[in-house]
């Protein structure tokens, strides 16, 4: 039982990161029907920007550890949001009326560009986050020793996801995003500026992805220029698992994928962890081709 709870918690921590990254895929897919393959690399950029801000700009020296964490968190989210915005302007907007395939190829190109740019700027070796920033306390919970940093990661992901849900469901701008996702043409006729909504989505998604990159850097310590690939792949899977284009689906899919992986590693075989996770994905897609929560639910705005 203790081992089961421990594995569940392990899975939730990994799944939370998957979910945050998956939100970026799913939001972009929702409004543009485009898989933004460069999203995983924006996650990498977030991790590297966080390190640069912490080490080179000596923010920790000016604000103290807690203040520095918050400040860097906000700065990284803003900077990666800017990168996402520029990405949309340069790589996707000119292709808005071209076929879907052109946009996908452009996305793959952007991904290769970002990955190699990071390698050329920072080099191919591993980088390590400074240790003094990691909250160093342990919580005893249900007979388990839980590192405090892990609880903070889970807490931060949940908070970000709740904030996003509230924004999408409760505000006028959120309603506009939902409207564009359902029918861009009709939304435009209703007086919604579709270009602005898409720009907004490309600010929010990459911002969350960059924040996830920073959290991975702080939590796991080690970053390298290829890290976006494996996280991107898993998050993309999570988005499909939950129903791509569906925001609560991405959250559910991410957490579920993390837990499935942890339980598969714990109770079947570690070498088969990914195979089992993808098998579950295939089974779910056979039963529900649009993912667990469906691609989109009919709703009244």
């Amino acid at each position, binding site marked *: 039982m203790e081992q089961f709870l421990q594995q569940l918690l392990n899975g939730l*921590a990994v799944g939370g990161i998957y979910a945050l990254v998956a939100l970026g895929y799913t939001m972009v897919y929702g409004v543009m029907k485009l898989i933004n393959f460069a999203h995983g690399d924006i996650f990498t950029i977030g991790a590297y920007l966080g390190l640069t801000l912490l080490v080179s700009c000596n923010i920790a020296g000016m604000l103290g550890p807690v203040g520095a964490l918050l400040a860097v968190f906000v700065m990284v989210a803003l900077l990666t949001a800017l990168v996402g915005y520029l990405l949309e302007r340069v790589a996707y907007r000119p292709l808005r009326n071209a076929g879907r395939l052109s946009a996908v190829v452009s996305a793959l190109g952007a991904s290769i560009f970002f990955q190699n740019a990071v390698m050329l700027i920072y080099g191919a*070796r591993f980088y390590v986050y400074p240790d003094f920033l990691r909250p160093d306390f342990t919580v005893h919970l249900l007979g388990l*020793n839980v590192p405090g940093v892990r609880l903070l990661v889970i807490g931060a992901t949940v908070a970000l996801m709740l904030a996003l849900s509230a924004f999408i469901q409760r505000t006028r701008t959120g309603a506009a995003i939902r409207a564009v996702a359902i029918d861009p043409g009709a939304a435009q006729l209703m007086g919604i500026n579709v270009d602005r909504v898409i720009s907004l989505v490309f600010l929010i998604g990459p911002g969350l992805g960059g924040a996830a990159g920073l959290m991975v850097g702080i939590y796991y310590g080690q970053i390298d220029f290829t890290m976006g690939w494996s996280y991107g792949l898993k998050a993309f899977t999570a988005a499909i698992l939950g129903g791509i284009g569906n925001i609560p689906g991405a959250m559910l899919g991410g957490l579920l994928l993390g837990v499935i992986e942890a339980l598969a590693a714990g109770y079947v075989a570690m070498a088969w962890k990914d195979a089992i996770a993808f098998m579950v994905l295939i089974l779910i897609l056979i039963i529900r081709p649009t993912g667990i929560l469906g691609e989109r639910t009919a709703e009244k705005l």
Partner: protein
Amino acid sequence: MQIWSRCVAILFLSLLPLTAAAADVKVGLMCPLTGKWASEGQDMKNIVSLLVENTNAKGGIGGKTVTLVVEDDAGDPRTAALAAQKLASAGVLAVIGTYGSAVTEASQNILDEAELVQIGTGSTSVRLTEKGLQRFFRTCPRDDAQGRYAGAAIVNGGYKAVALLHDNSSYAKGLAEETRMVLDKAGVKVVFYDALTPGERDYTAILTKLKAAAPDLIFFTGYYPETGMLLRQKKEMGWNVPMMGGDASNHQDLVKIAGPEASSGYFFISPPLPQDMDTPEAKAFLEAFQNKYKTVPVSVWAVLAGDAYKAIEGALSAGAQTSDAMAAWLKQLKDMPGLSGTLGFDAKGDRVGEFYRVYSVNDKGEFVLQPR
């Protein structure tokens, strides 16, 4: 004016045959100067060219100057095949290199058909010397030799329940399997045997499962990035079981990733670096290296390229003029002092002699070579 130009012409003419006569031993070096293993290749080139300079400064071999011909294989089998062909047509007598078993394998047949001696340096896959190639040697240990040494180290350490973990790469899996055979024979229980996925960040699920198996030692046979993450997350779990590794964890970044506290007490087996050795050869080499490059060699595989050159130099000094004579001389070589220990080869071309040592990490995160 005329006298001047004549003098100059005579000078040039007299120099020409001299340079031609002096540069009559060519040795090839094939290494990854670009690509993902570029740092290994740069070190290989630095070390071998330093040794070649030393040879020439001492008057060459039998009055002949040694010229080093370097070709980049980019850590890629296709490029390696081209590099091997270039070296073969450059008229070298022997080729040193390269890093990576698959890359070395791509060059083996080309160099063998050109009847050249090849000494692999970072090519540990067992099958490379099992093909019956008469002119192929290697200064690096084979994967199964490491497995035997690792098994012996575990048995001598008195561990009773060992967890073996690899990363499904052919190197790490081979090492884990070899070790398991040794442990089974010695009656040490292997309580856990599985693989992780390399390149991930979170190994807590794996560690939780490992902990349930209650081993008294974890032997992870993979590379340093995953080793670092395992050590760090094991520490976070508050689990103090000792952990050991193979020679792929011999990299200073390991401590950077895990942090000095979590890596303290970790130990691994590896051929030693010259800065950790007290033999006169290693000391002299290290001093020359530091004088020239203002740093220390970081990769043991590059040092093994230096050993390969030492072996070739030995063969040339003993009068081996053809590649067959050189191969025959290398096969009878025993106990020659090299940079990483004693050099010698068996009939298959594998290195014999002692070179595996145990390193452990101290409280400050430094690698300390353990006494034998």
